[in-house]
């Protein structure tokens, strides 16, 4: 059952790397929220309502509801749909993704930590690389933001893999942080969208020497 | 004291003697040997004409030119007769006094704002600068040879280990050439020429007259005597009897003067831009002498 979640998550990553439509980004990200919830649930050793509530908040409420809503707001607010522009052609992105998968496997194998689930490590590394590749390969800052969100997902995966339990307060702090970060980024993105009439990263390269 | 007396004495007639030799060589009778002294005497009593442009420098520098040379002459030995002033390294002061008088001569030339005099000054400055190393290398060689530390000891060639009269001759030859440059004689400069553009020393004194001119002419005469005295010291053995030395001294001075006179008679002046080469040749000979000394002293 859990393995199915893994596979689904992996496919969603490949898809997000290949797609060029903003609405697809949002959809896939929503899906990932649910998947993460499932994975986290499956991995829990102990069970408590507080924990459940937290995981629920982190995954479904945050990743599948609030963030997609924010992203949609940005698109509606700026009236920008999708323009496909990449600094790297699509097939190359996919190739790099394959490479990233291989490296993730290797890394997870090399770094098999006794305290961590190595399957999770693979998928976490893969997610991390996907996020970084998304940021490096996309020319639209909307893509950058999604890349960042994917990295945050990988952080979540890592934390599941390591299976630590932080006190509630700390967990809440982390959650709040990420939330505000996304919020602020979307505010700025909306502004940029209004100012430049698009999400072109090229229009944000003025600050050089 | 004797040394000073001898030098001053020779300075009186040596310039005239040169003129006499030249006259004879060209088949004329020529003026008396003391004619230059008489000229100076006249000048000393004459009034002066100053250029409108000139100032205090023209009025004082020629005096300093002669004063410096006079002090220099106090350090020069005359064939074994010790000079009045003699100390370790006196040849440095000797050379620098000469340089001082040259300096004063140059600024005198510039004081009148004449372009001819500047031209002469430029050459005088350059040649004076170029000839100095020759003198110093010679002195260094003599220092090594005799182990002396002052003019009155280093020219005592006969007391040097491995002495040969050849050394005296070489020294005489080098100093002779230095004299030609220092005193602006043929082949470096022709004192008798009448084209300002080609003169060195004579052109520098164009605007001097009367007393000041006398100062410069006296300097020139004194310079001959000084260098002649050095030559005499180098070639005359110092342990002869005083009387013999005095007579030999005068003989050498006369010989020196006639050599200069004959050179001037039978040799032509170099082109101005060949002079540097000539001066450097003198320095080269000086270095050669130094090397020979090193061999003689088994230092090599």
């Amino acid at each position, binding site marked *: 059952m859990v393995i199915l979640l893994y596979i689904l998550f992996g496919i969603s990553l490949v898809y997000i790397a290949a797609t060029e439509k903003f609405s697809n980004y949002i959809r896939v990200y929503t899906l990932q929220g649910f998947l993460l919830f499932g994975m986290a649930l499956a991995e829990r050793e102990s069970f408590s309502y507080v924990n459940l509530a937290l995981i629920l908040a982190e995954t479904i409420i945050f990743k599948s509801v609030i963030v997609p809503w924010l992203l949609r707001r940005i698109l509606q607010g700026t009236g920008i749909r999708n323009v496909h522009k990449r600094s790297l052609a699509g097939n190359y992105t996919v190739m790099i993704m394959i490479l990233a998968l291989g490296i993730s496997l290797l890394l997870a194998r090399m770094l098999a930590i006794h305290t961590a689930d190595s399957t999770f490590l693979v998928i976490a590394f893969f997610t991390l690389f996907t996020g970084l590749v998304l940021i490096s390969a996309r*020319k639209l800052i909307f893509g950058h933001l999604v890349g960042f969100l994917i990295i945050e997902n990988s952080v979540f995966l890592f934390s599941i893999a390591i299976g630590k339990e932080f006190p509630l307060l700390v967990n809440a702090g982390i959650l709040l942080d990420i939330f505000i970060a996304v919020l602020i980024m979307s505010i700025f993105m909306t502004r940029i969208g209004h100012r430049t009439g698009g999400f072109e990263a090229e229009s*944000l390269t003025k600050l050089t020497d | 004291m004797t040394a000073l007396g001898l030098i001053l004495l020779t300075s009186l007639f040596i310039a005239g003697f040169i003129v006499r030799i030249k006259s004879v060589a060209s088949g004329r009778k020529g003026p008396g040997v003391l004619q230059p002294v008489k000229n100076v005497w006249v000048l000393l009593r004459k009034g002066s004409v100053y250029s409108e442009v000139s100032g205090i420098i023209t009025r004082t520098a020629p005096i300093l030119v002669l004063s410096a040379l006079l002090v220099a002459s106090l350090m020069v030995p005359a064939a074994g007769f010790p000079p009045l002033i003699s100390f370790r390294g006196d040849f440095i002061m000797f050379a620098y006094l000469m340089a001082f008088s040259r300096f004063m001569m*140059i600024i005198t030339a510039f004081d009148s704002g004449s372009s001819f005099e500047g031209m002469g*000054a430029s050459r005088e400055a350059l040649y004076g600068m170029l000839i100095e190393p020759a003198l110093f290398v010679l002195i260094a060689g003599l220092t090594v040879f005799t182990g002396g530390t002052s003019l009155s000891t280093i020219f005592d060639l006969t007391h040097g280990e491995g002495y040969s009269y050849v050394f005296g001759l070489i020294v005489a030859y080098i100093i002779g050439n230095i004299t030609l440059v220092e005193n602006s004689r043929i082949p470096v400069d022709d004192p008798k020429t009448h084209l300002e553009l080609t003169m060195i020393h004579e052109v520098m004194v164009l605007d001097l007259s009367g007393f000041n001119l006398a100062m410069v002419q006296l300097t020139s005469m004194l310079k001959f005597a000084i260098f002649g005295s050095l030559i005499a010291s180098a070639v005359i053995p110092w342990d002869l009897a005083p009387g013999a030395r005095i007579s030999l001294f005068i003989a050498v001075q006369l010989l020196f003067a006639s050599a200069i006179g004959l050179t001037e008679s039978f040799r032509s002046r170099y082109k101005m831009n060949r002079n540097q080469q000539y001066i450097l040749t003198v320095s080269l000979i000086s270095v050669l002498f130094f090397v020979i000394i090193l061999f003689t002293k088994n230092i090599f």
Partner: protein
Amino acid sequence: MFYLIVILIITGFLLLAAGKKYSLILAALFLSAGVTACSWLAFSALFNLSLPVEINEFLTGAGIVCDRLSAVFILIISFTVVTGFVYSAGYLKPYTRSKPELWTKLHYAALLWLYLSMIAVVLFRNGFAFLVAWEIMTVSSFILVIYEYDKKGTVQAGINYLVQMHVGMLFLLFAFIISSEGSEGVSFDNLQFYFSRNPNWLVFLLFFIGFGLKAGFILLHTWLPEAHPAAPSHVSGIMSGVMIKLGIYGILRVSISLQDDMYVIGTSLMVLSAVTGLFGVMMAILQHDIKRLLAYHSIENIGIIGIGIGLGIFGTASGNTLISVTGYTGAILHTLNHSLFKSLLFFSAGSVTSRLHTRNIEQMGGIMKYMPYTAIAFLIGSVAIAGLPPFNGFISEYLLYFSLFSGIGELDFYPLLMFSLVMVSLVLIGGLAVFCFAKVFSIIFLGQPRTELSEPPAEAGRSMVIAKMLPVIPIVIIGIVPALVVMPLASLASGIFNPALPFDSAALAAPMRYISAGVILMVSFGTAFVVMRMINERRRTPVTGPTWGCGYPAANARQQYTATSFSQEYATLVRPVIKNGASHVSFREDEIFPGKRDFHTSSADVIRSKIILRPANFIVNLLRRYAVIQTGRLQHYVLYALLFLVLVFLLTVLELI
């Protein structure tokens, strides 16, 4: 040290806060207090006077060690700074109007800082304190240099100076740190210990580069000809007169402790110094900018001083005290002398340039009639710097020759050859200096003005004249009674640099007496002749007439001999060594009425352009060209993180880190 900096800051603020009228007076007060205290300290060190206990405790508490070497330098510094200060009071007046008031106050504050830091440099032994003082000295002189910030190139010259001094400081720092190996703290006192256990040449070389940059040895000299023309004249005078000498002080201080490799060090120092001297004077002759010319002469004189130090080290190495002591004495005396006549020359040159508003000597001429005191001062300075009797320059050069000839009389082949070569270079340096200063003095002060003067220049102000008269006094005194200075310096040199070897001071005493006698005789001859001529002229009043023009009646000032023509033959002679040339447009055959023509001569400092500027520009341009990090693209920034991770990963895997 602590107190020093506190004093520096307080004086600075007081000066800046003081009203316009009072700042100068306040500065004068501070300076005189400083000079009094420092001179007291110096004299007590020189004459073994005992200081009050409290003061002694304070000094040791502050890490101050004042030996006789320091004392001599303190006196040199104090004298020149005082004259410079007096001079500045008059010199700066025309400039202050166009500058903000604060800036002028800062200038005076910096002058005080410079003074105190220079004193500190010669007093501190601790490396840290020394370097702090050293840097404050650099910075305050930097502020002094850029006083005329609104002139083109001034700030650039200042920055150039500052950066080179910074490099020098790093060399000193490195030297200090290496030499502190195996001992507590960083200090000059460690050198003795370090040198007794390690090869000496490396640390000496590092020190030499650091100090040499300040002093201006060849290859390290390039800041000098830029900074001096940019600076106001009193600053040039102080910097050239004393500040660069602190480089010499440093080298002397280090050479005290040398124990090994001394032959090599002494020999190479002598040769390098000889080359420095020759280079300096050879470049100087071709300059038309009077201050740049004087700057090159500073390089020449540093070379002369360096020869003395080299002789000193060599002499100590060979156990020949006569060579060593006269060499060191010559070096220290020449340091003193140069501070006197160089500041004198800079002051005089400053007076002229501030009246004529040009530094180009080709546009001057005939100034002696308008500014007689300045002219006389410059003449005295010229004669002194050319090393001619009857002034002080001769004495120090005489000592160096003395040392050289002592060696020539006794040494083996190789050292003998080297001594002879150095001797010949010294002769050439002297000859060229005569050549140069005869020219400079004549062109500036004699003849007629070469350009039309809108108004006849007036003699410099009173304070400037006084400032010029002050150095003249010691110049003359040392020239006439050299024993007064030479004998104490010789005992200092033998006591500090050759404490183990005996030195017979009689060997120097006799020559000094004779030199005095010669000089006095010369003066008396001169006086006698003057009297004679006065008698003559009383009988026949002199008449004036036009200058001999070879029959050409319309001679004018433009036809006078110029500096370029004066050195033309020389320039041709040295062309293989020093790049110089002339550019002009020749006449066309069909040009019946020739138009205006320009004739331009130039001489480039090859070392500056090829060895310093070219590599520096190359590096800066290289850096600028490959400045590709800040692309402005977010993707790249993330990529750097990724690449950095990969880099560290690879290096770790390859076990490189």
